[in-house]
């Protein structure tokens, strides 16, 4: 987390006193999102981050689980405990089988009004953004979208939610001072996945939804799953080879694919490459594409514009190949080779191939 965000509110601002009525709001909550029987990883990532903030505030970390009655829904509470939650509020109701805005908004808003958390996080997914927007409006509180850094201003017990601004060139820190809860969404893979600790446990507090089907206007007619097989799964890839405009021509991009094949990697790209139609939209890494967190990210012919950087900055190791020694990507990559991608890429592919073959033999 940057030094900048640790400082208290800018000097000259008068000391902030929270409204008495709002001081009762305590605790950090994470909405546990799931669809079709599986927790969305973003919720676990948020528990990891929520744990840190809850510890700073000296409060409990709570998961909110809503779903149809049954073992699967209950197991999500358990997963929340394994990933850092102390407590789960659980609402089981057949009306919560599929996600619909109305019942989920009611369930979550009722819980907030009853148990009064000071902070509430949701994933910035299609589900999370739909729900967060309507819950915040119903509660008439502030909601900060797509945060990339979360921190606490301990002086005033306020959430510091930072997010990219103005086409991603800068970050801004947003606070929700005199309203509770303070709400924020975070995109998948922006926060690190916490260790799963199966020895952890927690308390479940059950509640009810208090709705009947006939009062819910929207009906789910059907669900058409995506063809998962050939859709790139960039956000969860461990190794990514990405190419940018420096690859010059679509034909040269096959050098990227060849290295990716040797490494068993996914292929990523910058926005201009996607816009030129060299690869599909699902492969765009960056602010308006996917956020990735691989162990190894190889960036070839990529300048390192901030909009690209925010999507891959959290990679464990970044290798950059660029013919311009002053390219911004060298400011944050771990290793760099200055040179022509068209000659270096094939050599790198060969070097990996040879090294891995030798290492495998050595066992």
């Amino acid at each position, binding site marked *: 987390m940057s030094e900048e965000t640790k400082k208290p509110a800018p000097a000259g601002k008068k000391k902030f006193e929270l409204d008495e009525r709002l001081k009762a709001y305590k605790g950090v909550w994470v909405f546990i999102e799931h669809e079709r029987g599986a927790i969305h990883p973003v919720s676990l990532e948020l528990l990891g981050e929520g744990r840190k903030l809850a510890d700073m505030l000296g409060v409990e970390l709570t998961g909110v689980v809503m779903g149809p009655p049954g073992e699967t829904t209950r197991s999500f509470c358990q997963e929340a405990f394994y990933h850092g939650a102390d407590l789960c509020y659980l609402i089981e109701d057949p009306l919560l089988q599929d996600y619909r805005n109305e019942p989920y908004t009611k369930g979550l808003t009722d819980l907030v009004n009853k148990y009064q958390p000071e902070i509430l996080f949701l994933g910035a997914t299609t589900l999370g953004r739909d729900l967060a927007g309507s819950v*915040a409006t119903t509660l008439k509180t502030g909601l900060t979208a797509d945060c990339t850094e979360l921190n606490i201003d301990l002086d005033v017990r306020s959430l510091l939610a930072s997010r990219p601004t103005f086409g991603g060139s800068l970050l801004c820190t947003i606070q929700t001072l005199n309203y509770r809860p303070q709400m924020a969404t975070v995109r998948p893979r922006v926060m690190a996945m916490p260790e799963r600790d199966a020895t952890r446990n927690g308390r479940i507090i059950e509640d009810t939804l208090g709705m009947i089907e006939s009062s819910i206007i929207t009906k789910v007619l059907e669900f058409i799953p*995506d063809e998962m097989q050939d859709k790139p799964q960039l956000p969860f890839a461990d*190794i990514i080879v990405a190419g940018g405009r420096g690859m010059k021509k679509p034909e040269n991009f096959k050098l990227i694919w060849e290295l990716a094949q040797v490494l068993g990697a996914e292929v990523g790209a910058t926005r201009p490459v996607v816009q030129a139609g060299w690869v599909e939209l699902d492969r765009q890494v960056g602010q308006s594409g996917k956020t990735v967190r691989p162990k190894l990210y190889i960036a070839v012919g990529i300048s390192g514009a901030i909009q690209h950087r925010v999507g891959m900055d959290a990679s464990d190791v970044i290798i950059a190949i660029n013919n311009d020694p002053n390219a911004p990507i060298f400011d944050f990559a771990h290793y760099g080779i200055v040179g022509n991608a068209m000659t270096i890429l094939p050599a790198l592919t060969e070097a990996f191939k040879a090294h891995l073959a030798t290492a495998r033999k050595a066992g």
Partner: protein
Amino acid sequence: MHIVVCIKQVPDSAQIRVHPVTNTIMRQGVPTIVNPYDLYALEEALRLKDEYGARVTVLTMGPPMAEAALRKAISYGADDAVLVTDRIFAGSDTLATSYALAAAIQQISKDIPVDLVFTGKQTIDGDTAQVGPGVAKRLEMQLLTYVSKIRSLDTDRQEIVVERRSEGGVQVLKTKIPSLITVLEGNNEMRFATMANMFRAARYPVKIWNKDAAGIEDPTKTGLKGSPTVVSKVFAPTPRATKAEIIQCESNEPKDLSVTLLAKMFTKFPNIEKELLKRSA
């Protein structure tokens, strides 16, 4: 059938520059455009108009210059345009914006009841995707976000069936009108403005509403005052402490550089070598 399409005028972010010293945005001379995602919403409304017959009203909240965005929409074929503009709206966050827009839509409804409200998926400046859900809640309309397709519309039964993008698939939903739909990009392309519509747009008397005309009952719910979120700081991302180690070797041949790179990396990050061996095993 009456459809209100909310559109926002935004700076063309591709052309925004950041001042290298002060880290502030240099807005001077940056052209404004209609938020690109809102054009998908407008086109979808115009298609419903073609198919079912509808009146399409475009609505924006913004400074007086936002009138240009509305004229653009008229040139594409919208029937009516309302600009909600008042100094008190300055600094509105999404909660305050949704309050003003919802009030204006209620006002528009007094003339001809509104059946559908369309918004874009999100904007390219604030980029929150929160205004649509906010307006829907305030108007107590059914909310359908990330809609990729309108399958059918039954005006007699006041029913609409849509496809909605969700994680891992598409949800097919049936709901009642009035509802608010946030339209996903890429399912249609904006039509060309016709000559006739361009003339109409040039002469069109855009309705310009201040807070009273827009039916704002409680001005403290708008603008900075009505906004729970406060931007407390704008800053540049912190540079990483160390720059890349630039790989060099005696020959500086691609092959030797690559071998040197791997040797260094695998020594310092043995887990990456393990990972690569694991996947190719």
